[in-house]
């Protein structure tokens, strides 16, 4: 193949454009341009994408049945086309579909949570007791250092995991680990959120349930497992998503959620909406 266009190619190209011009009438062209702006009437029904967003729930109880491999590939493919800063695509995936391996990961996280709850969960002791005061001091120190990681909400989950009341990976048949390339443009953590959201919504539209597993971060301190999975710089384990068929039919109806303030600036005025 020649890497430069020769004169003949150019002539052919012009012919082709001429043909197109003849075939497409003015009315056709107007119709084509109008189609570019899709009119949505006020109060219109949800489209398929909106429907998937509204019926998505975080699924923490899965059926035992393994989703077919091609469906997981479909989901990953939707992640591949997610937007990212500078189109740097700072991600890579590890798909784990072996029960033993997921069980091994689970075991490590449970041990880590048991360790954590023993050292920082003051709710194990009665208010006013000496142990409670001592442990609360630990907790408060950690909370000051990293208030998000030691937020009370995940602390409740840590306790449930340590007690065996809650499974970190929700006993899902498939777990997708999302690795982040630390050399990504801007804030690669944001891109990880976006790629995961694409996959979660794709899964929802295919009838699969998913749940983000932030506790997967605990695995990063398991060097043997990191070696086994081949996770090494510049990549780090950023997030995990459990995938499987949900129990019940959580997509049968939409739920209510709190509203958030919207400050709306238009026509030189500000409105506060909810």
């Amino acid at each position: 193949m020649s890497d430069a266009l020769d004169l003949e190619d150019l002539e052919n190209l012009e012919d082709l454009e001429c043909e197109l011009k003849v075939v497409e009438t003015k009315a056709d062209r107007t119709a084509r341009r109008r189609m570019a702006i899709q009119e949505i009437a006020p109060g219109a029904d949800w489209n398929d994408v909106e429907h998937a967003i509204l019926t998505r729930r975080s699924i923490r109880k899965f059926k035992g049945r393994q989703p077919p491999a091609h469906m997981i590939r479909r989901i990953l493919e939707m992640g591949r086309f997610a937007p990212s800063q500078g189109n740097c695509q700072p991600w890579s995936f590890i798909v784990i579909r072996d029960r033993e391996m997921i069980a091994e990961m689970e075991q490590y996280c449970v041990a880590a949570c048991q360790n954590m709850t023993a050292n920082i969960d003051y709710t194990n002791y009665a208010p006013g007791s000496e142990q409670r005061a001592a442990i609360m001091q630990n907790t408060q120190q950690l909370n000051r250092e990293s208030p998000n990681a030691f937020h009370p909400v995940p602390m409740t989950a840590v306790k449930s995991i340590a007690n065996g009341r809650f499974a970190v990976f929700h006993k899902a048949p498939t777990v997708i680990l999302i690795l982040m390339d630390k050399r990504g443009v801007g804030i690669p953590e944001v891109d990880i959120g976006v790629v995961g959201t694409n996959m979660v919504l794709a899964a929802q539209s295919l009838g699969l349930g998913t749940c983000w597993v932030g506790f997967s971060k605990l695995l990063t301190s398991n060097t043997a497992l990191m070696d086994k999975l081949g996770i090494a710089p510049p990549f780090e384990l950023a997030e995990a998503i459990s995938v499987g068929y949900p129990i019940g039919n959580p997509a049968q109806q939409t739920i209510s959620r709190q509203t958030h303030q919207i400050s709306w600036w238009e026509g030189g005025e500000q409105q506060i909406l909810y």
Partner: protein
Amino acid sequence: MTAASVEKAVVDPDHLPVWDDPRETIFRRVTIELDKCDGCKLCTVVCPANLLELFGPKDNLKARLKADVTGCMSCNNCYAVCAGRGVYATEPYDFAGYYEQKRIGEFAFPRKF
């Protein structure tokens, strides 16, 4: 008690949220309409915090909140699986006594604009 009516109770800047203290956390915001409950057990299965249980005679089981629970994060998964639409959370899960609630409105179902 609505989200908007909860006032910040603690002003000490060194104080950190205490997650088993009802003065600092909104508890028990789950409503269960017993006449709509057919005891199918699904809500007790899907609740991420494992807060719901069944009670009553075997032929007339109903869902209820467990006695000593604090972990509802108002995800409404219970409502999503409930065929009778009889169980739901209507208030945010928040450390309202510690964190000032800001820019949060009432609960609402998806609205069409």
